[in-house]
């Protein structure tokens, strides 16, 4: 996969994670809102797939998911605060 698809996949993780971040707070105070729960399930599925695909192709977002078959790769990639430029 190329740079564009990496960026697209990462943007999908950012967007779906944010939906869940905001919904989580809403559900803490509205735990029985069925519409919100349906939305959670829908977005959670998309996010899980995006994280799995990204981890497989470009490396882990969580250190629990580091593939240690060759070497410890968690510290190879740029850190999030470095930005793109």
């Amino acid at each position, binding site marked *: 996969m190329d740079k564009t698809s990496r960026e697209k996949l*990462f943007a999908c*993780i*950012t967007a779906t*994670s*944010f939906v869940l*971040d*905001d919904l*989580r*707070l*809403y559900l*803490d*105070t*509205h*735990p029985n809102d069925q519409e919100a729960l349906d939305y959670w399930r829908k977005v959670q599925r998309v996010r899980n797939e995006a994280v799995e695909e990204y981890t497989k192709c470009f490396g*882990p*977002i*969580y*250190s*629990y998911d580091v593939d240690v078959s060759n070497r410890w790769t968690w510290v190879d*990639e740029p*850190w*999030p*605060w470095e*930005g*793109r*430029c």
Partner: protein
Amino acid sequence: MWSYERRLQYPVNIKERNPRLAQVIMSQFGGPDGELAASMRYLSQRYSTKNRKVAGILTDIGTEELAHMEMVCAIVHQLTRDLTPQEIMEGNFERYYVDHTLALWPQSAGGIPFNSCFFQSKGDPITDMIENMAAEQKARTTYDNILRLVHDHDVCEPIKFLRQREINHFQRFGEALRIITDELDSKNFYAVNPDYLPDLRK
């Protein structure tokens, strides 16, 4: 426990350095209404909070504030990365630079170090929720003040995101306050601490 997610909550990619702006924005890291104080406020308050929903909202907002602290630090870092001595002098950054070089250290824009007296953890959920609602508004005002000084789109966008989150959190803490008061005697909302009720009539 917490584990690190290798991403920012909202992207920060700043092309142009600006030490003067960095000095202002760093207040939202270690200043009186900054993200570090916000996170420590909510994560400290939650232990004695007996209502489970309210303890949940404190945990989840306190956790999100850690991600906001990381975004503010990323903004300050990218605005000051690899500054030359000349840029430091021209950007009035020398008084921060002399103690911290180009590292992040929690202080207000005026140089006052981070202090836990910036927030309260009172053990009375009504007191705490009203403090938290005020805190979210104070942070929102600070972001408004910052936005008036920012003309760089790359800085503006993440600051606008953070400002909007203060509004959402205010709403959630307002609901948390109502959840607590709904469980109280309606004639006696604000008279006593509902989480600590030894007899006061001594």
